[in-house]
């Protein structure tokens, strides 16, 4: 967790997040008697004073606030598939939402698939159920493999991982045949293709199936972007090309510019932590944040991925000490924190509250500045990673120009 914090915050020693009880005790009160507070033990905030939800109100189990979804999950756990079927039917052609639900129910089915089998038997032609089954296999394969680094995965775990993953393409093709317009089965297959070590050409053919059905599917892009990372089956050049082409092809408001923030954080930041402050305060990071803010402002507020964009922005705005804008994002995020980047951490809530407290305290210390006017769209800074007309600067990132 602390290593993750370091990665996400860029700080070598993040302030230690304290539990409510600890924070209360530090302030000389009995645990549980004072209002819930966030932040490190000596720097705390009262979330309610800033119109922010209390720590106890945060939800880390779901990324969208949707009572129908909660009800369907409960029903599935009780063995009843009908509310799930109804929810999927309501999601209709909102492909992003449909994939999100498919993933959530796929995770449930990876634990216990009896409700899903009943659904499949009752309606063998239901493409939504078939896609959920395929997604459950992908997630089951990863449970078998475990999230450990590959050198710690045992031979038996690898055998099971590949054996289960090899069943996924057939299930995806079956689901795709049942609902030919739906990109969901193809997006599920993206995740399996990475695990199955598909070659670049095969992967590109699969990608063509995805974008033919939904050209700007955010989760599909996140999944494919990771395939193109140097650590998987791509390179820095290939992943930059993929990212910038996707963003350029999409209308403003697609939220795809969050790909850039993810990439800066995962891949482009310097290995050497001493170089990082200059990197984060550099021009290309400022530009990437500005572009993402423009994208967010034009997005549909009902987009299920909107909190992911806000969360990425919040982390980047805290990192670059743009306090007013950071606090604005935390206000908008509200209480649903089951998103990357928070979900990358084993204790997403602690990461979230710690980042949120830092934002609010920074904003207070700066004298509660107003949110600056939005930047205007610009092209990528010349010579930066994102300026594809020049060779990428690789280990020598553009800093503070």
């Amino acid at each position, binding site marked *: 967790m602390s290593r993750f914090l370091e990665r996400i915050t860029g700080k070598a020693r993040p302030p230690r997040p304290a539990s409510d009880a600890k924070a209360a005790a530090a302030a000389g009160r009995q645990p549980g008697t004072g209002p819930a507070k966030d932040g490190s033990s000596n720097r705390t905030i009262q979330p309610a004073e800033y119109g922010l939800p209390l720590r106890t109100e945060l939800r880390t189990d779901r990324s969208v606030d949707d009572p129908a979804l909660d009800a369907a999950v409960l029903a599935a756990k009780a063995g009843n598939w009908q509310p799930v079927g109804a929810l999927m039917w309501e999601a209709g052609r909102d492909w992003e939402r449909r994939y999100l639900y498919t993933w959530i129910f796929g995770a449930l089915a990876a634990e*216990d698939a009896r409700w899903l089998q009943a659904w499949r038997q009752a309606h063998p032609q239901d493409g939504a159920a078939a896609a959920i089954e395929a997604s459950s296999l992908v997630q*089951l394969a990863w449970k*078998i493999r475990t999230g450990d680094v590959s050198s710690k995965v045992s031979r038996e*775990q690898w*055998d*099971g991982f590949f*054996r*289960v993953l*090899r*069943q996924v393409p057939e299930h995806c093709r079956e689901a795709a045949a049942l609902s030919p317009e739906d990109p969901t089965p193809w997006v599920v297959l993206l995740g399996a293709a990475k695990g199955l070590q598909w070659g670049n050409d095969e992967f590109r053919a699969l990608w063509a199936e995805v974008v033919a059905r939904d050209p700007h599917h955010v989760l599909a892009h996140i999944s494919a972007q990771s395939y193109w990372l140097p650590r998987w089956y791509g390179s820095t050049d290939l992943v930059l090309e993929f990212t910038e082409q996707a963003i350029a092809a999409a209308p403003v408001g697609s939220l795809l510019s969050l790909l850039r923030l993810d990439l800066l954080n995962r891949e482009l930041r310097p290995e050497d932590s001493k170089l990082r402050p200059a990197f984060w305060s550099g021009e290309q990071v400022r530009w990437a944040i500005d572009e993402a803010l423009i994208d967010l402002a034009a997005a549909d507020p009902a987009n299920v991925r909107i909190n992911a964009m806000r969360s990425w922005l919040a982390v980047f705005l805290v990192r670059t000490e743009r306090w007013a804008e950071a606090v604005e994002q935390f206000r908008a995020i509200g209480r649903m924190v089951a998103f990357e980047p928070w979900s990358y951490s084993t204790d997403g809530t602690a990461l979230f509250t710690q980042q949120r407290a830092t934002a609010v305290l920074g904003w207070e210390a700066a004298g509660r500045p107003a949110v600056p006017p939005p930047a205007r769209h610009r092209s990528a800074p010349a010579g930066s990673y994102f300026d594809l007309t020049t060779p990428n600067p690789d280990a020598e990132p553009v800093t503070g120009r």
Partner: protein
Amino acid sequence: MGFGLLALLLAIDYLVLNSDDPSPRLVVYALGFSAVAGVPILRGIFFTRGNRMRKPPGVPVTKAQQPVLWQRVEILAEAMGTRPPKEIWMTADVNAAVHEESWLMGLIPGKRRMLLGAPLLIGLTPAQFDAVVGHELGHYSNQDTRLAGLVQRGRESMMNTLRAFRGGNNLSRVLFGLYKGYAERYLRTTQAISREQERAADLAAVRIAGRDNVASALRQIPALDAGFDFYLGHYAASASKLGLLPHTDEFIGGFRHLLADPERNEELDAIRRSLPKRKTTPYDSHPPMDERVAAIEALPEDGRGRDSGSAMEFLHLPAPLFGAVARSAWKPENNSKQQVDWATLLHAAGRAHALEQAGPLLSAASAVSGGSPTLMQVLEVVDRGGLAALCGRLPEPKIAKGTTGRLRDEHLRTDFGKRLRSLVEVTVADAGRGGWPLSWSHSHHFEIRTELLPEGFADRLQPAVEAVVAGRPSTGQLRELVRQLS
């Protein structure tokens, strides 16, 4: 105790090497560990036991039988300024040692005897052989062998006592406290002597064989030790339970094939390159191997370089000699076993290994259905919805322990799939369409005789097996492939 430790190390190796890997590699990490820890233990055993034993293990090698070997040893002894041994015995292990049957606690010199392990002759170059023999003769020239036996025996029994007391009850802990101080003092004092003897012997060897050959010999010994264990387990003794052995001359001599294999050589290189650092105790008789090698490699360049070839060139008719060594080392029951060529032996070993894997699956199918224990019966049971029932009757795989739900189901199916694969391999082999061919790079490696089968058979085999244990089990593909066998 030494034997106990050795047995433990071999047991660890055995576990690592028998983890159902269809083609066991010379598992470098595990073997590297036991090899380095194992060398001093082996030596320890021979040192103490050898001194007490009137007849050492192995066969005596006379000057008339092996003039070149004797001449080499005599030249080395002369170069070291010491008398050559009275006897040379060839043994069946990775070991070289000198014994002296001294009298009156070492005051009166006795008969010197040299033990040479046949695998060393196979795996060392001539100059590396000089280095090893030079090291052993270095003990003579430093006049340390006569008392060394006594010192070593004392050390050994004190170590045993210390180990026996450790982890005892309260009373023994009190007694241990009384003894411990004395024992530790003795061990520390003699340990310095013991280690100093080793260092002096190393330097003596460098004078004879040259720096690089001594260093490479020290690196080679753990590699040979690991390699020879592996060779015995996966080749020479792999079908012994089935009553099959390689020809006597090949039982030890076959080790040269493994050493000549480029892929195996790469694995052994990993051991040679990185001598794993061993935790040392103040009681070790030898300095850690990495320290010894580092000390030798730090000596100035002597321009002698490294040689190549095999010390087997010192032997007249090595094959029958190795055969005689093998017969002297193995238990009497091996004399009645059938001797076959390598290809026959490894096919039989591969088949037995696969059948062992498949055994529980066959029994489960028979128990569930009441039918005969055959592949077809297994598929019948699966077709009748009995996959879970079969899985439940197999020994629980380690990976499934403590798991529940679908995760557990999949772990059980993965294990089922591996056993089914083995059963299919036996079926294919028994139809004369495949087997476990002789390969020094891969052992227990099944190969399909594609030229005798319809195109694509080999590629369809694993998917067909996996279809049987898929979410919706299907036996059709596998049945079709089995039909193509007849």
